[in-house]
């Protein structure tokens, strides 16, 4: 029995390390700069033929390639590896430890791999020197670190990050759910709270009138489900406003917003990007560690809203719970039904609801 127990442990470790390796050596990351430039052909050569074939997929691929290229550039720019001291304060003394990590390279997730398997698996967010910090954001200096998950006594930060990530997933779904002849532009989502009972994402689609059927909602939920099953990490990258503009030049909403976003940031010219799978989105963050932390989830409704000036906007709404948190179906149905109601938070951008 003991043998088998060890054997199992070993297997789990191996599997886990494999995941980790896969993450580090993702094909996205491995894309070289040359490759990237070739993929964004229309940018450099600006052929009329390629411009004509602009679809959601091509835009997404271009953004992804730019993101990957920028990321590799940033990693390679770290020429000298410096060591930093990361102090972990666990629940008891036996758990606490001090780790020697690499500056600008190691992330809180790397720290968890040195501490405990369970923490690596469950933690959604790190707290570095008292500030919430993404799990996949490299550490800048020696620091104290703690890890948050959803079953703590007051998981406020983790909840908010979870809700934000929900919106990211909605935008991911909206981006790839439609046929090529419908052009999708994701509006930057507004500040959200838990009170309305659903996270949301405003999306501009050149669809005149559309109220999705139940089956269509279910089909869109399925996209989300597949993404969650992949347990993909959510990466973070800070880029300059220029690059951001280059990436989002097809999106008229983002194009207008990026300068103001960049002004608000600390260095006045940086924009924070998040990537899940191959979908890139602007957000201040922080987000949770990976999509596998999502448990029960549902894309509950798509409400049409009017936008002054440009075409039709649709408000995507969804409800989700962390995988850590079990809930009976009776209560889940109540939450789900509540998520179907129109979420009217930050309606000032959107001046008027079209249909009640």
């Amino acid at each position, binding site marked *: 029995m003991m043998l088998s127990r060890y054997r199992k442990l070993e297997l789990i470790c191996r599997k886990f390390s494999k995941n980790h390796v896969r993450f580090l050596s993702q094909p996205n990351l491995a894309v070289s700069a040359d490759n990237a430039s070739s993929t964004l052909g229309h940018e450099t050569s600006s052929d009329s033929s390629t411009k004509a074939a602009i679809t959601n997929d091509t835009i997404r691929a271009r953004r992804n390639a730019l993101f990957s290229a920028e990321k590799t550039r940033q990693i390679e720019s770290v020429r000298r590896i410096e060591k930093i001291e990361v102090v972990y304060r666990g629940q008891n003394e036996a758990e606490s430890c001090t780790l020697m990590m690499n500056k600008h390279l190691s992330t809180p997730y790397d720290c968890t791999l040195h501490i405990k398997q369970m923490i690596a698996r469950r933690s959604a967010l790190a707290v570095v020197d008292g500030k919430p910090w993404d799990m996949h954001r490299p550490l800048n200096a020696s620091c104290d670190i703690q890890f948050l998950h959803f079953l703590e*006594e007051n998981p406020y930060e983790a909840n908010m990050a979870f809700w934000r990530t929900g919106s990211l997933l909605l935008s991911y779904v909206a981006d790839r759910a439609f046929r090529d002849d419908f052009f999708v532009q994701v509006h930057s989502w507004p500040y959200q709270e838990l009170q309305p009972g659903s996270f949301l994402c405003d999306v501009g689609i050149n669809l005149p009138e559309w109220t999705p059927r139940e089956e269509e909602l279910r089909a869109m939920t399925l996209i989300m489900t597949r993404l969650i099953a992949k347990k993909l990490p959510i990466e973070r990258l800070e880029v300059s406003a220029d690059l951001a503009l280059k990436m989002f030049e097809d999106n008229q909403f983002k194009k207008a917003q990026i300068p103001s976003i960049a002004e608000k940031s600390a260095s006045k010219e940086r924009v924070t990007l998040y990537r899940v799978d191959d979908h890139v989105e602007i957000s201040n963050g922080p987000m949770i560690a990976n999509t596998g932390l999502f448990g029960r989830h549902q894309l509950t409704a798509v409400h049409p809203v009017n936008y002054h000036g440009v075409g039709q906007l649709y408000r995507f709404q969804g409800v989700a719970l962390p995988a850590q948190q079990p809930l009976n179906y009776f209560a889940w149905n109540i939450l789900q039904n*509540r998520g179907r109601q129109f979420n009217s938070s930050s309606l000032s951008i959107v001046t008027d609801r079209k249909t009640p």
Partner: protein
Amino acid sequence: MSYDKIRTLVPPKAWKHIKATWGTVPTYAMRLEKIRQMMTGLFRYERIECHDKYGLEIQQYTELLLQEAIKYGPRHKPTMETVDFYMIEKDLVHKTFKLFVPRFARFEPPYTKIHFIPTQNREIKRVLLELKGNPFPPVEPRPLDRKGSLVNILLAEAKRDYVRQKVKAESAKEESRDAPVEEPVEATQAKETTEAIKEE
């Protein structure tokens, strides 16, 4: 007093999972002997590990024995004899009356607690049987306040909505009785929409 509380621990059909033999056939006497040995161990160490069915059966015996000891005290001869029978090591008799009886007089039964130990092999089920108030660190973690968890926040909000709707429906009923005047629904919506906008 307390017999009713133990009933939840007692299955409707009598259990005889503990089987012990001296020779070839399990006997009644040896069964009690086995129970007695395990009870002694439990009272000595206050926390023991054993098979699940053994643990559940010994829990029943322990509950009854402690109840009697608390009810009648050491001067009661038959109780003393029973305790003396179950405690093979005789210093535990003193421990029972001097330590456990004052301790459990404060508690409400059940006085024992059972924890199922997670094992790799599903067929082997083992339990941790302990007397309450033992000096060891607790097996179960400290109960947390779950008010801030995502589910509870969402359900609390759902409850608030539900109550609000109910009150509205009732007031509407009363109004319709007095004078059928309808409030414009859009006005209430407009209030909600005029909240300050916060963009990220």
